[in-house]
């Protein structure tokens, strides 16, 4: 495996993870908001559903994705009508990565929404700020550390996703073969020790970098408030 191929795998992984986060973060924020702020029938059900990818075997999650979003799946057919195809495509890998990272996104977001002093929003209301203005000037800036921390962790998780991805969209070089899948393939072939070492090193670096970034972002934003 050449260095160009290694670079392609890394780029594909970054693309899959980035797209996964692009869609998963706003949805996770909405879910975290609803869980933190509202009481409704079926709340514990939603809560369980959100946590499910964390505890269910990834292969099973991948299987459900295949059933739902595959060629003949109900959701898969619906999305195909708007020109979006998941089966055996990198879009499918992004979907799997997003679903698997979802619990990691929701948890810190929900926590930061719950710990936000609602009195601050009340104060903003008495000062004339409407609902949207309160969200933009008070709520979002104050929960941002939680959102960013969640997004970075989720990104790292998405980069390393394996089980659900290989079950749902298989292991197709150049299309769905992300970092973990490539390492797995190389492990099974006699040649390619050097490429495998590179991929493992890159994976580890990305993971460590993400965690450090997440910590740094949290500290930096926190510090501005304590200055």
């Amino acid at each position: 495996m050449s260095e160009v191929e290694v670079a392609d795998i890394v780029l594909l992984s970054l693309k899959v993870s980035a797209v996964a986060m692009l869609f998963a973060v706003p949805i996770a924020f909405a879910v975290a908001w609803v869980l933190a702020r509202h009481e409704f029938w079926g709340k514990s059900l939603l809560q369980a559903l959100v946590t499910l990818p964390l505890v269910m075997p990834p292969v099973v999650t991948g299987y459900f994705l295949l059933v739902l979003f595959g060629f003949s799946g109900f959701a898969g057919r619906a999305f195909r009508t708007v020109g979006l195809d998941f089966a055996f495509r990198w879009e499918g890998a992004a979907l799997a990565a997003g679903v698997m990272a979802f619990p990691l996104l929701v948890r810190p977001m929900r926590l930061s929404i719950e710990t936000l002093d609602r009195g601050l929003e009340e104060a903003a209301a008495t000062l004339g700020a409407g609902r949207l203005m309160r969200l933009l000037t008070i709520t979002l800036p104050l929960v941002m550390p939680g959102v960013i921390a969640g997004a970075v962790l989720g990104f790292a998780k998405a980069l390393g996703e394996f089980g659900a991805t290989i079950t749902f969209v298989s292991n197709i070089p150049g299309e769905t073969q992300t970092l973990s899948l490539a390492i797995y393939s190389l492990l099974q072939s006699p040649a390619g020790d050097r490429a495998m070492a590179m991929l493992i090193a890159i994976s580890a670096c990305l993971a460590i970098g993400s965690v450090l970034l997440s910590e740094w972002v949290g500290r930096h934003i926190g510090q501005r408030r304590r200055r």
Partner: protein
Amino acid sequence: MSLAVRLHSRLGDFEISAEFEAGAGVTALFGHSGSGKTSILKMIAGLIRPQSGVVRADGRTLFDSEAGTDIAPPKRRIGMVFQDARLFPHMSVARNLTYGRWAGNRNSSADLDRITELLGIGGLMDRYPATLSGGEMQRVAIGRALLADPALLLMDEPLASLDQARKREILPYLEEVRDETGLPIVYVSHEVDEVARLADTLVLLSDGTVLGSGDAVEMFSKLEFGPALGRHEASSLVSGTVSAIDAQYGLCTVSLEGGQELHIVSDRVRAGDRLRMRIKARDVALSLAAPQDVSVRNVLPATVRSFALDESPFVEIVLDIGGQALRARITRHAFDALGISTDLPVFAMIKSVAIGQRMLSGRK
């Protein structure tokens, strides 16, 4: 300017049923914790919705359950100061102060420089809330409310979370705000001291209902509110004008309406200042004859207006000193020994040191 409030609300077991009106100046909602005063304030601000009632401020109907009117909090033009300041932690003091302008679309006529000077916070503009002291935070919160162009200012125990020293720091600023802005202020408190110093109108609350409301001075002199105000806090508010200052002894003479004089210890006042003094009932002693050679500096001729006599060891008496009410608490034993009765002329003795400087309020 006037505020008319009629509210009814049931929150679980707790029922609030309150009705009162307030004019210009400071209206104090006074009651012990759990009496519903903060809930009433939040209902005026629109942060809690009452089940029924009417809230009218300055001729504007803010809430009317029958007409279906319920103006959203941002549109009520009410400035609110919370017990815990509630400054926005991610914004500088300057951004906090001007929040009403840039986020609330309030075109305040109040001048930023004037308000920061009034509250002594001009030097804090670039700081962040976490670096401020409790007193500074509360002053910034007051400034932020004032700069949002309020028609009515609501204050929810703004001093409750501060220690004694910080309270003394803020009280003069509150008096400045009251006198300078001319805004009607609804002030929630469970501290008799603050109420005595700030209030023009007093609304007495207990268990969610109004025990009584009216002019603060009159309310303080009414015996039936003794239990609500607290036995040890029972006092009268007496007003007068500083007529002379004796710098050598650190005493100043206050001429009361009605021609009598009080001597008090104060280094803060100037001749001509209007003062409202709080005199606790237990600091007033009575004598049938004018006492000679006593250390007490204030001996005022008075007549007994009314008294509350029951089985308790104490008797609460309301005296008349030149048209103003003065409360006294003496033992039932002394009451019988002196043969106190209505319209009896007596001499009220008040130690000058009992009329502390802290209990004074300047009035323009």
